[in-house]
C-alpha cells in the first residue's frame, strides 16, 4: 500500500503530465479562455460541495463538465463575443465560489476543507482520487493516439481540417470535457485559484524550447510533471501552500525558457554573421 507521500508524488506526476498534454492541445485549439472559465467553474463546484457537505472533487467535476458542455455548445453556435461569454462564465463562477465559501460553516479561510479547495493540499490525495487521475490520463492518451491524424490536421490548420470534413466541433468539445475532468481531479492538489497554471505554463515553456508539435507535447508534459513534483517537495520542506509553490516554480521555468531561447537565437545570429 502506498503511503501519503508516495501517493502525492504519483498524483503530482500524473497531474503535471495530464495537464501539460491537455494544455498543449488547449493552446493549439485556441480555447485557452474557455479552459480558464472551466477552471473557475470547477472552483465554484468545489465550494458548493463544501456547503452541501459533498466530496468537493465530484461537485467540481459536475460543475466543470457542465460549463464545458455549455461553453462548447455556445461557441459552436455563436460567432460574436465568444470571449465575453467566456469571461461572463468566469466571473459568475468566481462569485458563486466566494458566496459558497462565505455561506459554508467554515468561517475561517484556513479551515482544512476550504484551504484544500483554495490553496491545495498534499493530504488531499486519496487512493480513489489517484485512480481517477490515472484513468483520466490513460483515457486522454488513448484519445490522442486514436485520433492522432484528426488532431494533427486540426493543429496544422483548423479551418482547412473543418473544410475537409473533420468534426472540429466534436473534437473541441471532447478536449473541453477532458480539460474539465483533469481540472477537477487536480483541483485539491494545486488549489482552485491556481489549478489552471499547469495548463498554461508548461506549454508556454515548451513552445520556447522546442519547435516541432510532437516535441512540444512531450516537453509540455515533462515540464508539467517536473513543476508539480518539485512544487510539492518545496511545499513539504518549507510548509508552503502546494498550489503557490507549483505556480511559482512553473513560472520560473517559463522565465528560464525565455532566457534560453533568447540566448540560442543570439548565438545563432552571431554565428550566421560570422559566416557572412
Amino acid at each position, binding site marked *: 500500500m502506498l503511503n501519503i507521500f508516495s501517493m502525492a508524488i504519483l498524483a503530482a506526476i500524473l497531474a503535471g503530465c495530464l495537464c501539460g498534454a491537455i494544455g498543449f492541445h488547449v493552446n493549439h485549439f485556441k480555447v485557452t479562455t474557455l479552459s480558464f472559465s472551466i477552471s473557475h467553474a470547477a472552483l465554484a463546484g468545489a465550494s458548493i460541495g463544501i456547503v452541501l457537505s459533498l466530496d468537493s472533487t465530484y461537485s467540481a467535476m459536475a460543475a466543470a463538465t457542465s460549463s464545458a458542455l455549455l461553453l462548447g455548445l455556445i461557441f459552436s453556435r455563436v460567432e460574436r463575443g465568444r470571449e465575453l461569454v467566456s469571461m461572463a462564465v468566469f466571473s459568475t463562477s468566481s462569485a458563486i465560489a466566494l458566496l459558497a465559501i462565505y455561506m459554508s460553516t467554515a468561517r475561517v479561510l484556513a479551515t482544512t476543507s476550504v484551504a484544500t479547495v483554495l490553496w491545495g493540499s498534499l493530504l488531499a490525495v486519496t487512493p480513489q482520487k489517484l485512480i481517477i487521475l490515472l484513468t483520466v490520463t490513460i483515457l486522454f492518451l488513448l484519445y490522442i493516439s486514436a485520433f492522432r491524424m*484528426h488532431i494533427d490536421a486540426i493543429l496544422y490548420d483548423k479551418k482547412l*481540417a473543418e473544410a475537409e470534413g473533420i468534426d472540429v466541433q466534436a473534437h473541441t468539445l471532447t478536449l473541453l470535457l477532458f480539460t474539465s475532468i483533469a481540472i477537477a481531479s487536480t483541483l485539491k492538489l494545486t488549489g482552485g485559484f491556481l489549478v489552471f497554471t499547469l495548463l498554461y505554463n508548461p506549454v508556454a515553456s515548451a513552445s520556447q524550447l522546442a519547435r516541432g508539435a510532437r516535441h512540444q507535447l512531450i516537453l509540455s508534459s515533462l515540464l508539467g510533471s517536473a513543476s508539480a513534483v518539485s512544487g510539492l517537495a518545496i511545499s513539504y520542506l518549507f510548509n508552503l501552500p502546494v498550489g503557490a509553490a507549483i505556480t511559482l516554480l512553473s513560472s520560473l521555468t517559463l522565465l528560464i525558457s525565455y532566457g534560453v531561447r533568447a540566448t540560442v537565437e543570439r548565438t545563432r545570429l552571431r554565428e550566421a554573421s560570422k559566416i557572412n
Partner: protein
Amino acid sequence: MQVVRGIPKGNVVELLGVYVRYSGSDRPAILDVNLEVPPKRLVLITGPNGAGKTTLVETCLGLLKPMRGRAFLLGADTSRREVVQARRMCSYVPQDFMKPPYESYLAEHVILLGFSAYKAPFEPVNRKERERVLWATKLLGIEELLSKPMGTLSGGQQQKVLIARALARRPMVAFFDEPFASLDRESRTLVAETLRKYVDSQGATVFVVSHDISPIVGHADITVKLSDGRITRVEGC
C-alpha cells in the same frame, strides 16, 4: 435531399437567395446570391477585391452559414451537421495558407493529413494513400519537397503542397481560393492545366477563385462574376 456518393446526379452546389454577414458587420458580404452548379465543371469565380469571392466559397463549404436563404453542398444543407459528411468528398485550398518559418510539419505529412477525415480511430496511413501523395506531387513536379518542413518552403512551394493535398484526396468537388497568387507564370499554367485534366479525368467539379483570370479563363466551363457581394454575371452555365 441526400448526399449522393459517386458522381452526383443533381447540382454539386446550390445557393438559393443566400445572404451572409460577418459578425460585427452591418452589411452582408454576399447578398441575394442564387447559383446552381452541375457536376463535371470547372468554375471560375472572379471579381475585384472585396467582391465576396472567398465568402462565396466558404458559404458553399458551410464554413459560413447563411443569415438568409439556403445553401446545399452535394445535396447536404450546409446549416445542418450532415454537411460534415459532404465535406469529406471535397477539398479546399484556402487563401491564407502560409505557415511561419518555424512550422515543422514535413510537406509529406501535411499532404497525408488530407486523408485524416476518412480515418477510423487508430487507423494508420496505408500504401494506397502514400501512392496518391506521390501521384499528386508528380503532377505538380514537387516530389523533392516531400521531406522538407513546411516552414522552410517559399510561398509558391507551400501553395503547391496544399494543391497536391487537395488533389491527393481525389475529391468530388474542390475549391481553390486564389491558387495562382504565389506562383510564377510557368507554375500557373501547369496548375491550370492540371485542374482541367482533373475535372475531365475524374468527373469532378472544381471551383477556382481568382481575381487574375488569365491563367484559367481558357479552361473554365462556367465563369461567375461577383461585385459588391452580388453575382453580376454567370457565363457558360
